[in-house]
């Protein structure tokens, strides 16, 4: 591949990655999540001491590991799209399986974290911070579970020459990346902000 092929294509040949409908969904979902984030930040700013005390019971490095695992899954699905575009469907399928694998690792880490918090006595009714913590991480996890179905669709597409649709593979990847960037925001809000 030459430098020219890697660089940004001219405007007239540019195409929306995947189906445009998925982009409406991405923007709509990010709008919904932003409204949750705004409410959380507004109330957090008014009760900083209580939120800080509750937040100190989270393990930052675990959140960092979870984030890097999900970023790695995004990297895998991005490679999958590229391999599929170049006709290397077996490698693309392997990358899609890797994406799901990293998703499963994230899921296990998240459940381990929840169990640990519940053992510490922090549940949905243990104050505002943990209410937001369980709500935001749970609603994100629902999106992750839907993501497994979406990656399954991509694998199904890549498995047979009769079904291979590059647009559909890109659409599936767009959804998975949305799950990733929503977590990037949730991680910053729950583990880092002061």
């Amino acid at each position, binding site marked *: *591949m030459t430098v020219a092929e890697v660089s940004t294509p001219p405007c007239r040949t540019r195409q929306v990655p995947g189906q445009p409908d998925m982009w409406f969904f991405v923007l709509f979902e990010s709008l919904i999540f932003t409204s949750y984030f705004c409410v959380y*930040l507004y109330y957090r*700013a*008014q009760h900083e001491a209580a939120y800080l005390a509750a937040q*100190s019971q989270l393990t930052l490095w675990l959140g960092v590991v979870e984030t890097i695992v999900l*970023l790695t899954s995004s990297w895998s699905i991005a490679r999958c799209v590229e391999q599929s575009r170049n006709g290397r469907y077996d490698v693309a399928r392997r990358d899609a399986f890797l994406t799901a694998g990293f998703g499963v690792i994230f899921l296990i880490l998240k459940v381990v974290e929840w169990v640990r918090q519940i053992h510490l006595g922090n549940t949905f009714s243990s104050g505002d911070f943990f209410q937001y913590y369980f709500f935001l991480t749970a609603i994100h996890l629902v999106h992750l579970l839907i993501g497994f179905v979406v990656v399954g669709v991509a694998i199904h597409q890549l498995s047979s020459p009769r079904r291979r649709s590059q647009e559909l593979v890109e659409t599936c990847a767009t959804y998975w990346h949305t799950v990733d960037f929503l977590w990037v925001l949730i991680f*910053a809000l729950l583990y*880092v*902000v002061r």
Partner: protein
Amino acid sequence: MRRLNRRLLAVWAVLSAITVIYIWIDHSADHHGTAHASSAVTVIALLLAAVKVRIIMREFMEVRNAPILLCRLTDAWIAGMSAAMIGFYLAGRAVAT
């Protein structure tokens, strides 16, 4: 192909590095192991998250190769989300004082 794979690897490395920076921010915000509220830390954390979201959209989601309208729309969306979050946080602080 190899060049593009290297680019994706570099993007992943940058995103992971920014994530690790959060640990340093967290440690530097503590005073002798005690957490303190800090609007500076909050704003920096939100802006770093916005930078990561933009990198994910531009590189992993291939917005850099998309029509200009989608490029502008996603940039405006990220800017709007960040402004709203920082705005609501600062409004909450203002109400509290």
